[in-house]
Structure formats: structure tokens, C-alpha cells
């Protein structure tokens, strides 16, 4: 399809979004990521029955932690689409890219640079 989407996104492949833990999400921010999008299969279509529901819960947990420590919960989000929906994936990436640009860079990055 050769679709275009923002180059700000780095893809990390996992066997199922059920593998994504709240710790993975938090460590991403700790290391300076501006945002994290978790992209799972359509709800009800998980090959492992409930992997994408687990991922959604963990994204909610990460949002709660971010909010508590004074960071924007919108920096992490759960998306659902099927593997046949390339154009929709590109659209979601554009949406997330716009959202994160509006929020600005991860505030920890400046502190991390200073510490280094």
C-alpha cells in the first residue's frame, strides 16, 4: 500500500498486546518517550481471547499513574484495528502524532539530559 504516516513513530512488535505490561509503558516514559500508542486487534477478535482487553486495562493503569505524578494521561492510548486495516493504522498514527505534538515533548527528557 506504501502508505505515509509520521516518521516520529517507532514500532515495537509483540506477539499480542496482552504481552504489553504497565511497566513497559511506564519505562518508555521514564526513558524519555513523548507518547505510547498500544495497537491491538479488534475487541472480540483476539487470537488469545482476551489479550487486547488486558492491554486496555494496562493502558488505563498507566494513564492513572501518569495523572497522579503530574503528567498528561493522554500521552498513552489504546487503539484497536484489524491487520487488514493499513489506512486506518496510518490514520491512528497521524491522530496520535498530532495529539502528542499538541502536548509537547516529554517533560522528563529535559531533566534526563541535565542529569546526564
Amino acid at each position, binding site marked *: 500500500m506504501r502508505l505515509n504516516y509520521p516518521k516520529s513513530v517507532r514500532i515495537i512488535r509483540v506477539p499480542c498486546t496482552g504481552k504489553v505490561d504497565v511497566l513497559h509503558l*511506564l519505562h518508555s516514559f521514564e526513558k524519555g518517550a513523548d507518547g505510547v500508542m498500544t495497537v491491538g486487534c479488534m475487541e472480540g477478535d483476539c487470537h488469545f481471547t482476551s489479550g487486547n482487553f488486558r492491554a486496555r486495562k494496562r493502558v488505563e*493503569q498507566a494513564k492513572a499513574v501518569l495523572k*497522579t*505524578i503530574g503528567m498528561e494521561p493522554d500521552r498513552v492510548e489504546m487503539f484497536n484495528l484489524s491487520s487488514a486495516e493499513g489506512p486506518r493504522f496510518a490514520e491512528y498514527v497521524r491522530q496520535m502524532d498530532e495529539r502528542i505534538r499538541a502536548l509537547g515533548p516529554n517533560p*522528563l527528557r529535559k531533566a534526563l539530559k541535565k542529569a546526564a
Partner: protein
Amino acid sequence: MIVADKKPIEEIIEAVRPYGRLLVLGCNECVTVCEAGGKKEVGVLASALRMYFLNQGQEKRIDEVTLERQCDHEYLEEIRDRIDNYDAVLSLACGVGVQFTAEKYLSKTVLPGVNTCFLGVTEKRGLWTERCQACGQCVLAFTAGICPISRCAKRLLNGPCGGSTKGKCEISKDVDCAWQLIIDRLKALNRLEDYEKLFSIKDWSTDRAGGPRKVVREDVQI
């Protein structure tokens, strides 16, 4: 198991604020099962604290260790060689683990990271309920395996009281009447004649009424 619940992160932030070097200390036993103080919760809390203080411009060293247990000498000894690297320990174990850690490392401030709640069971993931109050004189043999001490709001030994309605306790429509459960189960076990026997006055000296308790077993002491 001992059931604990997480303390709000805001409360923990305020408690650890004065300390520059902090060890977040988890426990692999009960608090792991009730998802309040195991390795995972240690990781999440430590990460949240590191991010918070980094964002605030406060330099802190926050490390993570999870011990097999915090209620036994041998496991607590595992941190002896590094304890001096820290100003304080944030223990995610139950109140027992927090106290034993504090007893062992007298010069360190030990802070609790969870609220210890009760002795209970995992009914399903995310739902833990009370089953035992450790009264020291078990009556379960006579009450069809249902504890009136922990599950009856009044701790009645000869129940139910007048507050029992349609199998529920008067304190809440969500709380089962323990004595209704006992009667139903005695009936199912064809042991309803046991219900006719009256309990004599319970010896509460083995409960908290007798002060802090201990179990001494000379037969296993070496």
C-alpha cells in the same frame, strides 16, 4: 493470606520526599498474590516515584528489590550488604514485614507502602474478602466451616441476631449473614442438630484481648 491494599501514590510521595536514596522493598508472598506489594507493584511504584521526582527537579536514587519474604530473618539478611546505600526503605510488605525490616535495620527509616487489611481469600482477581480474625481458638468444626468471628459483624457465637434479613446482614445488603450461611450449610451436611448446641462463653484471652500474642513451640526449636 494477609490481604493488603495499595496506598495512594500521593501519600507515598509525601512520605518519601525527605529521603534522597530510597529502596523500594517488595515481598514475594501474600502481597504479591493480592497485587499490592510484589515485584510488579514495586516496579510500577518505583518508576512512578522516579518520574515524579525527576519532573520536580529533585535528584533521588530509587532502587527496587523484592525479597522472598520480609517476615523471616534469612530473607531480610539478603539486603544487609546494601542497606547502607539508602536513607530509607519503602516496604511494600504487610505490616509484619515493615516491622520486621525496621527491627532488623535499626538505623534505617522504614516506611509502609501498603495498607494491611485482613486475613482473606481471592474470590476472583481483584476481589479479596475476609475469612479469619486469628482469634486463637478455632470454632470452625462446630460452625460447618464458616467463621462467625470474622464473618458476623457482631462476632456472635449463637446467631443469627434480629438484624438478619433474607440471608443478609443489617450492616449492608451486600454482606451475607454468617449465621444464615452456617445454618444453610449445616442443613446441607445433614448436621442441623449441631445448631441446637449452645456455645459457652468464648475465651477471648487468645484474641487481642490478651495483648500481643506469641506461639512458642519448644518441640521444633533447635
